[in-house]
């Protein structure tokens, strides 16, 4: 049997895309029943909006999951490198996470 490389990373990417896709399809279907707002809802409105079946909120949640997917796979890889005591690559992956954190901090 073939060995799967970095199974947790592959699973994270696949699972993230599937969850995001499901939320996007659900949001678009909701928009056929009730009209969606034109603007982007606030990120803090997502939990309540999801429960209320707000189409734009459900789609925004799908897009947020989509953006979080590569971010979480970077966290997974960082944990992998730290557990393997692979200091150079752990430092590099922490560096990538640090840059992403700056990007998020300057955006919100």
């Amino acid at each position, binding site marked *: 049997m073939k060995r799967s490389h970095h199974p947790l990373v592959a699973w994270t990417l696949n699972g993230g895309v599937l969850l995001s896709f499901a939320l996007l399809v659900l949001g678009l279907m909701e928009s056929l029943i009730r009209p969606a707002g034109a*603007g*982007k809802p606030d990120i803090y409105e997502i939990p309540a909006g999801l429960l209320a079946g707000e189409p734009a909120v459900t789609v925004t949640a799908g897009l947020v999951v*989509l953006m979080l997917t590569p971010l979480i796979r970077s966290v997974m890889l960082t944990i992998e490198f730290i557990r393997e005591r692979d200091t150079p690559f752990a430092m590099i992956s922490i560096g990538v996470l640090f840059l*992403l954190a700056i990007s998020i901090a300057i955006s919100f």
Partner: protein
Amino acid sequence: MPLNEMLLLIAGGVGAGLIGSLFGLGGGILIIPMLSLLLDVPMHNAVATSLMCVIATSSAAASKNVARGIANVKLGMTLELWTVAGAMVGGLLAGFLPGKALMLLFASAISLMAIPMARGLEGEAIDPDAEGNETPGGTSFISRLSGEFHDPARGLDVSYQVGRLPLAMGVSSIAGVLSGLLGVGGGIIKVPVLSSYCDVPIKAAAATSNFMIGVTAVASAVVYFGRDEVIPMLTGASVIGVFAGSRIGSVVGPKIHANRLRQAFAIVMIVIAMQMFWRALTGEVR
């Protein structure tokens, strides 16, 4: 969102994703002209939509390439430092540029991509059978970037050592800026350089580039998201379409001779670029 508008976006996305996948251009590259020229969507919103499409298509492909060991994860992480920094700069820079300037830059970029395709030069610079160098032993940083994978098409185990790392880093920064600025993946410049100059076999180069693209696109997508330039319903429908189209492309691609269509498609790209130049120089661009 009205049903007809949603179906139009999904169908357009399927077409863009399918064509992008068949010609190795990525899912997002055709969605920008489709949104900006046909649907009059402002350029910044079109770029934001394209970035989301890029994250979806690259994450799905990367999950397979990582599991199969074709993507060189250590090389990818090392170069991501540079692509992510570039993408942040590109995303921030786009905020200072008007839509007209973005359209001109995008038209210039796709013209440059189309010229080697139209002249039939693409592929000559890359040897698809290149196996790179033998994997050396050693514990130096560069030797730890070496890779090994099984190529089922040729029934061979391929091993290689990465060369010219500073060049790969420099090109990755440029690819990152282009990604953040224009909403493209950047593989079109990373893959040829990695395979032709850095001794990475073409399959590993493409898979490693794809692995990096998702994180790179996120670095600038959050910048667009924070500026409220992501239109949820439009983006959601486009992502579904492009994702479905690129999946269809990955299934039908190996069965059709896409190379024969490359030159014809390059001409289409040049026509699109001309239309974008014309619109940017004579019309109103939002």
